[in-house]
């Protein structure tokens, strides 16, 4: 499947061990940055009861959901530990400090506004 790579902002706009939200016309996407600067993106919905993962605490390569503290892997989107469930991951790339997320062809053609 071909992906559409869309630039969503500069890597410095995401705090270390933190995240920013990219709004789309259906689901929000959470863009995370780990302590060593690696960028990950996930659909901003916890597999448990839909908590916004972008609001969680990032540690290692995972995020703890703000609602009931499930731990979600940023790499695979899977719930870690005893919990079960999976959130879709979004491919990311960083080129010259610019973050790109890979979305399926035909949706999200362009970035309409930037916060």
């Amino acid at each position, binding site marked *: 499947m071909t992906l559409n790579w869309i630039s969503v902002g500069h890597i410095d706009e995401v705090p*270390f061990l933190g995240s920013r939200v990219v*709004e789309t016309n259906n689901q929000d996407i959470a863009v995370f940055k780990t302590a060593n600067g690696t960028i990950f993106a996930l659909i901003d919905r916890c597999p448990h009861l839909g908590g916004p993962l972008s609001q969680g*605490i990032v540690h290692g390569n995972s995020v703890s959901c703000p609602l009931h503290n499930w731990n979600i892997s940023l790499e695979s989107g899977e719930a870690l530990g005893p919990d079960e469930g999976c959130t879709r991951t979004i491919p990311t790339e960083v080129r010259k400090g610019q973050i790109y997320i890979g*979305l399926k062809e035909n949706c999200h053609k362009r970035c309409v506004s930037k916060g």
Partner: protein
Amino acid sequence: MKEKLVIIGNGMAGIKALEELLKHTPDKYDITVFGAEPHVNYNRIMLSPVLAGEQTFEDIIINDQSWYDDNDITLYTSEKIVDIRRSEKMVVSEKGRELPYDKLWLATGSNPIILPIPGNDLPGVITFRDMKDVEEMLSASETYQDAVVIGGGLLGLEAAHGLQLNGMNVTVIHRALSLMERQLDKSAGYLLKSKLEDRGITVLTDADTVELGGNERVEVLKLADGTEIKTDLVVMAVGIYPNVNLAQEAGLECGRGIKVSDRLQTSDPSILAVGECVEHRGLTYGLVSPLYEMGRVLAMNMLGAENDYRGSVTFTKLKVSGIDVFSAGSFADGPDTEDIVFRDARQGTYKRLIISDGKLIGAVLFGDVDEGPWYFQLIKDKDNINDIRDFIIFGQSLAMGVETVDPLVAVTALSDEAEICGCNGVCKAAIIDSIKSNCLSSVDEVRSHTKASASCGSCTGLVEQLLKFALGDSFETSTVKSMCECTEYTHEDVRRLILLKKLKEIPQVMQELHWKTPNGCSKCRPALNYYLLCELPGEYIDDNQSRFINERAHANIQKDGTYSVVPRMWGGLTNAKQLRAIADVVEKFEIPTVKMTGGQRIDMLGVKKEDLPAVWKDLNDAGMVSGHAYGKALRTVKTCVGSEWCRFGTQASMSMGIDLEKLTWGSWMPHKFKMAVSGCPRNCAEATIKDFGLVAVDSGWELYVGGNGGMKVRACDLLCKVTTKKEVYEYCQAFVQLYREEAHYLERSAPWIERVGLQHVIEQVVENHERRAELAKKFIYSQQFVQKDPWSERANGNAHSHEYEAMAKLD
């Protein structure tokens, strides 16, 4: 006339034997005890936790002066016996006191070995045996940097751990090739060594100390291979030898120790001996459980029973928090022994069982020691284990065919005779019986009724499990464990180290305290952030990313990802201007729900995150600030109308509530903190289930603490009564500060008080005036940094604006 019993040695073994004797014949003897140390009977084992700062000397006293008084025992402390005149049946003390005896007990313990090397008498060269040594180590740690411990056995490592916790750079010098070689095999010794090195303790094995040098004080230590180590303190922990001088001079038969029969009689029938000073069947002992066993036999024989002591099997546990080591029985390789070994390198666990002739004869456990007591029991029972051999390494529940590995299952499966507390010889059935017949519900109660876990404390976890087993769900376990899986340190350890090492930010804490994960987890990061801000206000560096979303966004997240906004209404009061502003905000931002909270203020629920700064701006303009309804922080101060309006009111509760809220708002806490003020004992503000509550009476204010509504209701304890407003403020500030400094993160004041005891809080806040003033002062100092409205900082776009805006919007 009563027979005269004289005891030489006021230590652990002699007094334990005396306790046993008194249990059966409270007043058969006229008893006198001589002790060379200046103290009442204390728990020598616990000197390690005292050195580590986990306990105080008061905590480790076993029998205080009133025990001696109540039992009509004459105690001479700081008074050594220098002569036993057997022909006259008389002892003579160094002060010249002469005392006749009918029966004499020798319980003189042992002396630490001092290496016969040059410089061993320099100041700063000490041993680790009594309270005086601990005091010396503690005072050295205040002035000096470097310490060397000679001896990598149990005692030496506990000394090293304690000195390090007190901020010293510690090197352990050990002569053998691996640590604790008498209790541990090489693999476990190696694991132990790397564990200690991970914590920053330097360990040199195969190292022989040949000389100590220095002028005024020890300055350098020299090894046989020529290495020189700079040091300010040398602790020798290289072994002990039974203290037999007195017995020898009196002509009693001695070998390595004072020789005794199975009845614990020396070569003189009127003189008995007990403890480390004893040699029995060619063996001497250096752990309390065999000494206590001797004490029981000795006491029974004094009553005319004919009990024999037959020697003991012992086990060892290291008292270094976070490093679990257990060893029992023998682990030497032999032609007819077989091993079962289990390793998990990632978890850092190692287990080795030694089997001979179908019986378990030894066990070495590292990292996971929960099964230690079970193995110990198997070793003592000497039963054939062939039936369970295949599973024995996985522990009792699996080996015995029980499926889950719930620790509760393990205690359930223990036999009634299983010894839970090795030190005091208390078995499972005795504990269960005592819990049932005395309606006990806490570990402390079990401790005082049965003595189980009262000595080295290593069986506390098991005692808890037994309570749980006996009481069912009504008992909540509270085992003190490490903060989270990222560290081995407990909450207390971390807090102390932050202070000692003056750590200012989270990455530094993780580096210095050897965190196991790269950047912690959602449990430890918020806790660390809090500990830093509490210990070093104004200096520490706050880490917003380590705060839970509510504190990061200064609003409460809701189930649909929107937020709620609760402005402060001081003391539960509001006015037309505020209400109008709230009404306007609700309309302007189409806020779906407006609700009166249980905390006497108004909650606006369902606000979109991006609207938060604008909502706050409008509220700020009407003079309202954040209510911290989202924070581990001061929440609300509820009031009733009080003497300002109410016909029963005795004091002005509304204005008092406002004052208290102005005093304490903004302050971060271990958990949320709520207050209330009632104008009379009818208590309409429910002040007696708050963290801090005031109830007005004619003559002033009653101060209540440690209450909780919530999940487990707890009514407050009365702290004290005061008369003036000024006192109320000071007591409140001091109490809050004490809670801030002592509670674990996420521990409300109610469980904290249950843990430390109300008496402790009274001592700190009520009885000790200087301490109260000091606590209040620290609180006031830290308030200057936090009494800034977080909403206005954000409403003006000055802080963390990225928090509220999407990075991008895609079409």
